[in-house]
């Protein structure tokens, strides 16, 4: 993507967004209308059909689609069936919590993985290296759901150090961020270890050592800088996945992010919310791609050319 202007990249996303919206529309349409899920339990069949007609969901799919696209072009993103209000704010107001949780998870992962990965590479095949290997396998194998519940039981219920769930202050972010971070930390540790080992075998590292540079300088300046590219790629891919919602973690900690919203919207066939969420997530993914490109150039000036 390097060499292209961000604006051009953004423009190229318009057809992608259009196709995605069409696919989402068709899929949601095919699964039926949301009336049965939303009316009161004691409502009659007639009540339900009246609601379907009022919402215009009894019209043929192409009419519904034309109306939907027409509204979007005039800036009207439609109404959430589930919440009964404009859908756009319903999605937008979830973004801060999602960004917080994503950032928190990544920070935890990087804080754990970077030092551990370097340490394991430098002490290759030592007892600590094997121990770290074992822990990373364990870290990757533990499901988020289980980690979250265990953290709640230990730090929330037993030690009472942090709030059990919900959003609010920084303290609320700790357990979900750690839950989200540990699995990824395990992956990232292994990657940093292996790519650093590979780099440290290269000629320029040997040259740097021969010049008499300190080991710390060799590792950080010559080794790590080059080993980071795959780690950055992996982190950005992971960030994109997390922006789509960390459903399990959000549910365990009742964190008000996009994941819970999107899944609930799919359950209730809340067309407008699903569409907007897909738009928002796509745009955020694009932004991360652009940011990753920029970061590559900072790490490796050769890519800037």
């Amino acid at each position, binding site marked *: 993507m390097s060499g292209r202007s961000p604006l051009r990249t953004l423009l190229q996303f318009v057809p992608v967004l259009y196709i995605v919206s069409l696919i989402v529309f068709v899929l949601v349409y095919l*699964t*039926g209308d949301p*009336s049965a*899920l*939303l*009316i*009161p*339990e*004691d*409502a009659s*069949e*007639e*009540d339900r059909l*009246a*609601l379907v007609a*009022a*919402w215009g969901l009894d019209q043929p799919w192409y009419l519904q689609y034309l109306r939907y696209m027409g509204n979007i072009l005039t800036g009207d993103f439609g109404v959430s069936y589930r*919440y*009964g209000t*404009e859908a756009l704010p*319903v999605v937008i*107001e*979830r973004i801060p919590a999602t960004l917080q949780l994503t950032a928190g998870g990544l920070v*935890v992962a990087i*804080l*754990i993985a*970077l*030092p*551990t990965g370097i*340490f394991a590479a*430098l002490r290759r095949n030592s007892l600590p290296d094997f121990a770290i290997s074992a822990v990373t396998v364990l870290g990757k194998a533990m499901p988020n759901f289980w980690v979250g*519940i265990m953290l*709640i039981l230990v*730090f*929330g*219920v037993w030690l009472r*150090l*942090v*709030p*059990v*769930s*919900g*959003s609010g202050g*920084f303290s609320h972010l*700790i357990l979900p961020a*750690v839950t989200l971070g540990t699995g990824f930390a395990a992956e990232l540790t292994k990657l940093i270890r292996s790519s650093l080992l590979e780099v440290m075998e290269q000629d320029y590292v040997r040259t740097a050592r021969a010049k008499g540079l300190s080991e*710390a300088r060799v*590792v950080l300046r010559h080794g790590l800088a080059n080993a980071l590219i795959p780690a950055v790629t992996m982190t950005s891919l992971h960030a994109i996945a997390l922006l789509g919602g960390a459903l399990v973690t*959000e*549910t*365990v*900690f*009742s*964190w*008000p*992010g996009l994941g*819970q*919203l999107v899944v609930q919207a799919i359950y*209730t*066939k809340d067309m407008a919310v699903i569409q907007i969420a897909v738009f928002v997530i796509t745009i955020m993914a694009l932004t991360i791609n652009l940011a990753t490109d920029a970061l590559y150039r900072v790490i490796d000036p050769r890519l800037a050319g």
Partner: protein
Amino acid sequence: MGLFDFVRWPALAAATALILLAPRGDAAAETLTIAQGNDILSLDPANHGNNSTESALVNIYDYLVNKDFSQGQLRFTPRLALSWKTEDNIHWTFKLRDDVHWHNGDRFTAQDVKFTIERSQQDKKLVNSSKFRRIKSVEAPDDTTLTVETDGPDTLLLHAFVGNGAGILPKAAFEKAGGKEAFFKHPVGTGPYVFQQWIKSDRVVLAGNPHWWGGTPKWDSVVIRSIPETTTRVAELLTGGVDIAVNIPPEDIPRLNDNKGTRAITFDIARNLALHVRTGKDRVTGDPRVREAIDLAIDRKAIVEQVLEGHGAPTRGFFPPAIPGFAPELSRDILFDPERAKALLREAGYGGGKRPAIRISTPSGRYVKDREIVEAVAGYLEDVGFQVQVEVLDWTVYNNKLVGDGFGELYLWGMGSYTDASSLFVDNFKRHYDWSDEAFEGLAAAVRQAKSEAERIAISQKGQQIIAEQRVRIGLLFPQSIYGVSDRVIYKGRFDEMIAAEDVSRP
């Protein structure tokens, strides 16, 4: 500092810092915190069909009347209406309180009630638009008098003034806001608590209304949290993060009772679980003998004891005792007779390797122990010679199948939040069950014209008898609700599963 020191400690240091930075939360003594299993859907009483939503809204808005189940029987008691009368169940006059103010200071009048009814009727996109379907006209001759005319004798009119869609809204404030989007950003009610904040999927925050017509509210603030994960809900209760936690699974009861400072409460609710039966001629359940065999093969008592750990009541009926029109004989002398069931199947031409195949569908996690109950039923049916396929479905798919009539022979349905046994007649039995019965259709027509409460109840009971006799629905049990409650509060639980903060008090 050497490189190894540099890389060794950050992880540990970060973890320590995170823990040290975390403030210890102590909930203020005057705040009541309630944990529900899901978020509210709307602040608009007329635009949701969801019990947990209504449970939050009852604190903000008032109904015209209250439903009181505390005596084990439904009684209507005054709320915004002090009294009501009708001669013919068509023309109704309500006398309203004159000492009620909206949260914004305006005075509450009969105009507000008229507005609430007409708004629901006119805005067809509202989920509860049909709530007042039988009201033909409504007038407010003076500030404290409301007259209502129904489209015929309606012995159920008072029900329309309670529950989902019945919260009274302020005419002036609503019109001044210029639309529902704007009004429900900062909604105004007459209830004991004033809306403060709603963080979706997280919490609703309310503050005590110092000018409430009912006196000083019991709590300075009320926080209603959405905690979908049961383990987390229980953990919050155990640590004092919440005072009341809904929907506790039976197996967690000892844990809450053993823990110092918490306990579990159980109480009857307006819900039943039944097997709905497709009786088309193309199915094995088209044969009444096969349906009777299903009814006789199930040991309901054992299911209640084993699966619900005793927190429910076995029944063949469809409406629990507190609901008007309850049919007591359907909960008495429930037969469990596998031998007779086997004999019926033989009479119907099965046996000797020829087994009737049935599919039985259930959601998972929608009703308490739904899947486990159906698995137990399947076991009993196999015991008497059925070949059973259990189909566990996601709730969304389940509803699609219901609307599109895509189920097999049997499916589990947990009817709830109903008001009256006459709601039995609302279902389209021909379409959904492939079943029709002349006597039953006669009753369905008659119940709409019932001139008195007693007549309506008699018709409803007769209808339930026919449905149970013909096994169009096979009642299983009335489940109880289980909440976790902190010892910091006194709470008993309510039949309609609404948690009004004013029903909760300090010890």
